[in-house]
């Protein structure tokens, strides 16, 4: 019977099967269900679309840019309004703003990715270890987290950059240092809810080391809420990076970092609004994209709203 029915079973049916035949099928099925929940959220899809566009702009910057992002024609092309030659106008050194924004997307992505790659694992590790170990370890780690949380993010990042010296690498480091504490909090909360559950007890009985338990059995449980939080934070990271660039502590000239571009356009805001407005729009759109994507992911990944 089954041999007859198998080919007619659609791919969708296979994915959503109530009785998955393998682990692999089960996890794929779960992912598919999540994806469908995500697709149902129009705004989330729109956010994803923005991010995909951003990624492709960054990937194909060389093909998309019409001028060099760093070399301009100071004498003849300074502060030109948007036109057919310069789609978004030119800045105070005669550089094409469109090309600068295109190349700036790479910087923005690099900053966001690096911060996520540095801060999320650190927060995850601190949070899960604190949550699982409890006692003194928990108190010490969480008080350290509290200390970091006690400072406003941008101020803390500013002081780190001031100490480390201006530059995009240091900006990334500084933002990462200020970004991990909320992740640690979330990871600890998740850990506390699962640490005394039966499956952990079973693993303990089987003689697994605490290291293995945290790494293989607790961390995966924290992933979904962490991913949501990181995605939602990305807009904030972009803003912090732009803020550092704005006060001259982020990317250094001639790098086309969006925040620095706004800072240099500020002087012309009365007469040449496009110099500051264009990179501002870029930041707005990308931040919006990450926020919408994060919202969509939260709805899709939230286990409490899950129907499985």
């Amino acid at each position: 019977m089954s041999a007859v029915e198998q080919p007619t079973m659609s791919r969708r049916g296979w994915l959503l099967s109530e009785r998955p035949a393998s682990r692999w099928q089960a996890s794929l099925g779960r992912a598919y269900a999540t994806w469908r929940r995500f697709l149902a959220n129009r705004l989330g899809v729109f956010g994803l679309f923005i991010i995909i566009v951003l990624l492709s702009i960054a990937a194909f910057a060389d093909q998309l840019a019409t001028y060099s992002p760093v070399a301009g024609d100071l004498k003849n092309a300074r502060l030109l309004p948007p036109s057919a030659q310069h789609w978004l106008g030119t800045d105070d050194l005669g550089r094409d703003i469109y090309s600068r924004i295109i190349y700036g997307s790479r910087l923005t992505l690099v900053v966001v990715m690096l911060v996520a790659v540095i801060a999320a694992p650190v927060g995850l590790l601190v949070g899960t270890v604190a949550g699982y170990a409890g006692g003194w370890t928990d108190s010490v780690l969480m008080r350290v987290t509290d200390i970091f949380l006690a400072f406003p993010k941008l101020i803390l990042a500013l002081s780190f950059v001031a100490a480390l010296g201006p530059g995009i690498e240091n900006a990334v480091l500084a933002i990462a240092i200020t970004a991990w504490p909320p992740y640690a909090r979330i990871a600890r909360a998740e850990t506390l809810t699962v640490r005394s559950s039966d499956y952990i007890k079973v693993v303990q009985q089987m003689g697994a080391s605490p290291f293995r338990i945290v790494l293989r059995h607790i961390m995966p449980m924290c992933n979904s809420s962490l991913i949501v939080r990181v995605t939602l934070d990305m807009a904030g990271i972009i803003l912090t990076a732009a803020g550092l660039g704005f006060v001259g502590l982020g990317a250094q000239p001639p790098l086309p970092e969006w925040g620095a571009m706004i800072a240099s356009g500020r002087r012309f805001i009365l007469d040449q609004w496009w110099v500051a407005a264009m990179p501002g729009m870029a930041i707005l759109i990308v931040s919006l994209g990450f926020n919408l994507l994060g919202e969509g992911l939260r709805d899709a990944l939230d286990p409490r709203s899950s129907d499985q």
Partner: protein
Amino acid sequence: MMMENIAFRSRRWLAGTALSAMLMAAAPAFAVTPADTLVEGFAIDDIITMDPGEAFELSAAEVSANIYDLLVRSDLADTSKFKGDLAESWTISDDRLTYTFKLKPDLKFASGNPVTAEDVAWSFERLVKLDKSPAFILGQFGLNGDNVAEKAKAAAPDTFVFTVDKPYAPSFVLNCLSSTVAAVVDKQVVLEHIKPVTPSVDYKYDNDFGNDWLKTHTAGSGPFKLREWRANEAVVIDRNDSYWGEKAKLARVVYRHMKESSAQRLALEVGDIDVARNLEPNDLDAMAENVNITIASAPKGTVYYISLNQKNPNLAKPEVRQAFKYLIDYDAIGSTLIKGIGEIHQTFLPKGVLGELDENPFKLDVAKAKGLLEKAGLKDGLSVTMDVRNSQPVTGIAESIQQTAGEAGIKIEIIPGDDKQTLTKYRARNHDIYIGQWGQDYFDPNSNSQTFASNPDNSDDGRVQTLAWRNAWDLPDLTKETEAALLEKDSAKRSEMYRHLQKEVLDNSPFALIYQQIEVAGVRSNVNGFKLGPSFDTNFVGNITKE
């Protein structure tokens, strides 16, 4: 009924304005400035004291110049000449060591006290004994706390005698005496306000010569007197009604602190201020068509340059030094970034100073620079850093040089910082390239010549830290020539020597001078007689009237 209504409305409107002004936490906006008051929007955050014996800031010098009188001032019509201010006449002894000044009759301070040679002598004495930053301008004539009473003394109530230690060029001595440090203060008034000080090794006098009181008060004999100075807010000066000369036309002048060019422009356009003093090129451009506003301008004694640290072996090569001078896009910078606020000027003496050489031989020439670099063995280019202050137009110029130098294979990494950071690094000789400005300390060619073309001791702990020293440029011949020019009594010959020095610096130095500052001000058209002088202490407000 109608009247009431209007009154009611305007009161509400006033309340609204007051509220929004308070909310903005900025200086409150006046609708129209009073007819007998001139309001200038001016970045005055540099002022730290009003004491002419201590102040060495541009804005303070400008205010002081309207409050205090000097013995002599340079003649604004021909800056190579002098005219008496408090002094009616002066004679110079044949050995050029003794200067005797005869004061005008019936001079009075704002307090009503007569101005005597005793006041002049005491003003010099307190300057030298206080020994604050500007004291060197008179100190360089061999004055110190022990001999100042002897070297600057009153021979008679109307005769002041000043003795110098070397036969300097008279133009040099008089130029120094015409800077604000030589301001004459009211001895009687200041003595009433002196504060006792415990003598120490660094400061061996038992009082502060009124330094503390003069910080926020003035005791001068000029056409104005200080009403109040509120740091980062405003300086207010009132007419001195007992002025001995032609009295000021306006009753009051307010210098209102406004930092941003765009804020000044907005305030000027609506009439909140009469004069805007810190306008940037784009705002100047935008106001060119406004019929209510005229633009006043005057070249100032500040020059902007980049300099190459000779401790960096690559930058020390003569070809590389030369190459950098060809890698600045003077034309483009002149027509955009500094349009209206500066003019291209490649020699170290600013326009208007004795001996100025008006030559701008360098142009952007990437091919030539590449050739020079190849000759220096740097065919593949080089990487250097440039310390740049976070303010315009310096950052814009730095980025432009970064671009043009990049075309020749020189990779410049810009290190931004605030004034203090970059200057500290520069003074410690730790930079590669520095971009900065130099304002002359007093209106004499020696001020710039000494700093650009002399370096008596190039060791790291050299005592005289001129700009040449900061860039570790050793130039024994030019140093000697600078010293000789200082003692040359014939003005024509003296200016010839400075021309030669400028030529040498132009061709061989690690300095690439870019432009000379032009000070501009946007002035509302109902203001008459507003004129900017050749230096910051010659922006007089006494002759200004308002319609």
